[in-house]
């Protein structure tokens, strides 16, 4: 399964979920698949998309929140699994795009590649619902269950590294513009106030 195929399948099942993408390959592929504005595409803070998504999920417990994480990012902040397990947000789905490489720097192999079972790590951290899928048919079949019921759910999407080193364009918004696009999208959708009357 290619990352682009996995994320295109996720996009079809997204529904009303607000999405947070780890920087790099996952964000670029999600942008290519959805051009979604109510997605927050991390520009930095590698490893902390899951924590950002957890904060949003806790702030808006009725809003479905997805984080599209990547294996390189998760490994920079494995402690997020403990925090996620302890907080147990029912509205959070944690998808891991696991290609075994640092894709955007030239598909450099990940540490401990081929030996790490991320779903088992999430399970051991205390996230009760986990899944691992490696092909598109399995992902299509598993998604209804992943999206049903209470979260958190951790789903490891094992995808092939992309040997073409193709440059997938990132979303074209600079940091502050993305902040306002994402925040304004949530204000419109949820009727909440993110920014004050003077815009900050």
């Amino acid at each position, binding site marked *: 399964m290619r990352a682009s195929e996995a994320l295109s399948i996720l996009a079809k099942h997204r529904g009303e979920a607000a999405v947070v993408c780890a920087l790099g390959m996952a964000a670029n592929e999600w942008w290519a698949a959805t051009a979604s504005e109510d997605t927050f595409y991390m520009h930095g803070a590698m490893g902390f998309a899951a924590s950002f998504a957890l*904060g949003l999920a806790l702030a808006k417990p009725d809003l479905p929140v997805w984080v599209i994480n990547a294996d390189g990012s998760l490994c920079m902040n494995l402690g997020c699994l403990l925090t996620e397990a302890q907080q147990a947000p029912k509205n959070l789905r944690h998808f891991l795009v696991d290609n075994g490489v640092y894709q955007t720097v030239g598909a450099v192999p990940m540490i401990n590649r081929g030996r790490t079972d991320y779903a088992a790590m999430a399970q051991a951290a205390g996230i009760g619902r986990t899944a691992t899928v490696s092909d598109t048919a399995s992902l299509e079949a598993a998604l209804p269950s992943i999206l049903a019921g209470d979260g958190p759910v951790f789903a490891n999407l094992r995808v092939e590294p992309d040997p073409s080193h193709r440059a997938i364009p990132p979303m074209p918004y600079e940091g502050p513009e993305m902040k306002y696009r994402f925040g304004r999208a949530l204000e419109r959708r949820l009727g909440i106030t993110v920014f004050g009357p003077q815009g900050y």
Partner: protein
Amino acid sequence: MDVNDAIHDQLRKAGVTLAATLPDDWVAPLIGRIDKDPEIRHVPVAREAEAIAICSGAFFGGVRAAAVMGATGLLTCTGELATLNLRHQIPVFIVASRRGSIDDHRIYQEVQGRRTLAVLDAYDFPYHVVERAEDLDCIPDAYETCRLQKRPFVLFLARKLVKGRAP
């Protein structure tokens, strides 16, 4: 009123309803107060930068959040503060111990004392050191300044405020 109760009270006045925390011994009593408050969602974390990202995500849910940590933990967050909060202009309000001050006689805190404010100055992150209990009512103003400046703001708690005078 106990000083930690007073800090907690001022955070409530600032509208804080979510706090992500990792203690050092100076802020641990404050975190204990937060943990007992049913009106504040308490999120203990495994690393301080998690607290930064959690508060940043909560911002987009319209929730006022605070990250509570020690000064050593604050220094570990500088990369995330720069590439998440500075890059995207996301405000995050941080309450941190002012370790390494002249009355903090701990050798393993001396670098924090000498370099933390210089690091914050280099990033142009605003901060304010509270030394006296009667000044704690600055917290709601500090929170508004954080929002207005759209960047990290560090409210430091001095030793004599939270630990009393050094022996």
